């Protein structure tokens, strides 16, 4: 029953979205509230792209509601190495996504809800949207001390951030999206949003860290579903439409033609890592080898996520200079990625003299370099 109604809604939506002219003249043209049935961060970001590119928002506005399974989402112009612990994320299978809007880095899991307000460029107004959210929260729980700051954050008890904002403006449409912490794992959040990488120099947009708190901690009777419904209700009231949430499937190519290409682009390495603004890495590590400690200095320039320039300063003759220069040559042009570094280094070891000591040293150097990535 639920499935049938959601399919019907999907169909209705596709009618409106695919033939904007028809939607224009039809009587169902009013603002829309839609919710994604997927928890995949890339698919959901693709829906935002799709609506931004294909929907006619002249006479209607859209509220898009979505949640993601564990993922770190960085802003359009940020540097993931500067913002989060990529090593820990790989171990814990937490995805990394880059959104198209600006702003800072956030951690999403199923305890966090995302709200996207779509309007025409002229009607872009972030304060109004956030005030709507605060109104909804207060209607649900009048005793909640929540307010909007002039940095477009929502604070609980005047000190804890429960929502962060970002926006994207195109030629004719714009969207403003924000998070809302209902019941997110704060322990994972803080460990994953702490970058262990040292020696980075970059002009990428930095994030501003803040103390966070879940609404659930303030009032354990609150669930994400209740908060979502309250916000949808307030939106429906303010836009004079039915409190009706249309479900959409971000994998449905028929309802959203071209969406799978958008998802693929958002997942691609070229977008997630390759769009990192140019930065440099300068690291000095002390390698413990047998009975001595050696100093190694590594300098790299990374552009479009690839190593443009690489310099490794080793103690004299610790590694044969030929091998060292071959390693540097291989690394130049490849991705700033531990997997690629390992592959290139091990390939080099295949074709050089098979000496246990040499292999051990090379492996040690590689392991240390991987720590930078």
């Amino acid at each position: 029953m639920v499935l049938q109604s959601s399919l019907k809604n999907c169909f209705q939506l596709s009618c409106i979205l695919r033939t904007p002219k028809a939607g224009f003249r039809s009587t169902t043209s009013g603002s829309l509230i839609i919710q994604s049935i997927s928890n995949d961060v890339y698919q959901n970001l693709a829906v935002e792209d799709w609506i931004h590119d294909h929907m006619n928002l002249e006479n209607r506005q859209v509220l898009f509601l979505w949640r993601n399974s564990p993922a770190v989402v960085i802003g359009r112009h940020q540097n993931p190495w500067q913002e989060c612990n990529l090593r820990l994320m790989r171990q814990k299978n937490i995805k990394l996504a880059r959104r198209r809007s600006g702003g800072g880095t956030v951690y999403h899991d199923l305890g966090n809800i995302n709200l996207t307000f779509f309007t025409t460029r002229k009607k872009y107004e972030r304060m109004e949207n956030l005030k709507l959210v605060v109104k909804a929260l207060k209607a649900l729980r009048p005793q909640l001390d929540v307010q909007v700051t002039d940095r477009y954050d929502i604070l609980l008890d005047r000190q804890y951030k429960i929502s962060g904002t970002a926006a994207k403006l195109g030629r004719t449409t714009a969207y403003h999206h924000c998070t809302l912490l209902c019941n997110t794992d704060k322990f994972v959040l803080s460990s994953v949003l702490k970058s262990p990488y040292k020696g980075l120099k970059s002009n990428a947009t930095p994030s501003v860290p803040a103390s966070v708190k879940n609404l659930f901690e303030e009032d354990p009777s609150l669930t994400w579903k209740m908060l979502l419904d309250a916000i949808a209700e307030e939106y429906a009231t303010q836009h004079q439409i039915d409190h009706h949430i249309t479900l959409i499937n971000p994998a449905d190519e028929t309802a959203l033609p071209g969406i799978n290409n958008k998802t693929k682009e958002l997942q691609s390495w070229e977008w997630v890592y390759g769009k990192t603004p140019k930065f440099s890495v300068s690291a000095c590590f002390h390698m413990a080898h047998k009975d001595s400690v050696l100093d190694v200095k590594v300098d790299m320039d990374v552009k479009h996520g690839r190593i443009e320039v690489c310099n490794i300063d080793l103690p004299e003759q610790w590694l044969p200079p030929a091998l060292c220069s071959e390693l540097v040559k291989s690394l130049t042009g490849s991705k700033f990625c531990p997997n690629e570094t390992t592959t290139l280094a091990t390939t080099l070891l295949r074709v050089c003299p098979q000496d246990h000591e040499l292999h051990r040293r090379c492996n040690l150097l590689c392991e240390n370099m991987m720590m930078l990535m």
Partner: protein
Amino acid sequence: VCIHRIRSCSSIRFIKSKYVCVFDKSALKFSHQQRLFRTSAVSCGQIVQFKLSDIGEGITEVTVKEWYIKEGDSVSQFDSICEVQSDKASVTITSRYDGIIRKLHYNLDEIAYVGKPLVDIEIDASKGVAPEEDVVETPPMSHEEHTHQEIKGHKTLATPAVRRLAMENNIKLSEVVGTGKDNRILKEDILNYLAKQTGAILPPSPKAEIIPPLPKSETVPAAPKDKARKIPVPVSRPIVFSGKDKTEPITGFHKAMVKTMSAALKIPHFGYCDEIDLTQLVQLREELKPLAQTRGVNLSFMPFFIKAASLGLLQYPILNASLDESCQNVTYKASHNIGVAMDTEQGLIVPNVKNVQVCSVFEIASELNRLQSLGSAGQLGTNDLTGGTFTLSNIGTIGGTYAKPVILPPEVAIGALGKIQVLPRFNRKGEVFKAQIMNVSWSADHRIIDGATMARFSNLWKSYLENPASMLLDLK
């Protein structure tokens, strides 16, 4: 007067796009001079300073974060020019004009100001000019079906060439498939549409309009020399393919593969193939699989293949050896570090299971699980990827029967395993039975390994797998 207008324009700042239309009308009056002017200078459009438009919310300054174009690039109206950021909002700035970028006013990470020039665009004069015949420039609001198309929900004026062709031939733009950016209708699209209707390629109309070649278009309809009349004879349309070759440098995984395989070329390979009857092994695995599962390990066929190979290497250690660069010495490796070729998203990697000679089948299976999960997450370390002495490649999981694997230096042998197929075979009594058959293809370094050695090793390996109970006798 016309020329004077052009000169004075470059010093005046204009942002209103309707300026271009105004220019059109004046050009009509002075079209004669216009043509003369055009032929004397190659690309002399005027430079328009495109200013950064209002972002909203009272924002006056933004940071330029990415340029999508560089000086000298051609842009079309609505192409993305750059990405700017202001207070958590990322804004895509699109071009208002067709033309060539002549100057970028800001570098990356510089602050740009709303209302100040962002880029200078040279508007191509000829593009804005209608042909010299007295064609009345139709006001934008009439004959909309011939002059406007819907792009992203907005009625957009088509280019003059498209408008003219559509009006002349009474074509509704809504019926034409656009192949330009955002499905914009280009002149080629109208011509293709017409060709489909009449089955002919129509020449450009007799009006001498100089259209500069669009930088991105690959299709040029064949234009016969006589422009005075349309050709009524149906001509077979040339097959047009607008795909482009793409060249990119080899890096990362591909580079590693190039290096490895180029080194492998130096090894004189010989091949030896056989088929193995795995009927008994299949049954044994079925029995052992749930037991391994209770211990948290996924048991495939590979651990058996790997252990059997190690038992074989104990008898034929030369297959677990390495030849030095000068081919003077051969080193018999003590450890059997058997590599397993893995296909990951990024490419081929070959981690190895260390010291198989002292591992049980269960331990090998457990280690394989660990390597597989690290491999698919792109987290294998150098230790797992170096030190291999012998390799097995189970290409059969994807498909295939026989293969010709390439030896991975500094090793001297490699085996490729095909898929397991159910085939009819004869047993000792001469009866036909259902057999689970797998093919194996070995490659070995002929400098130190001879065919007989390879064959004997393969037979031994085969016997262990065809009769798994025999492995018990020799398991260490």
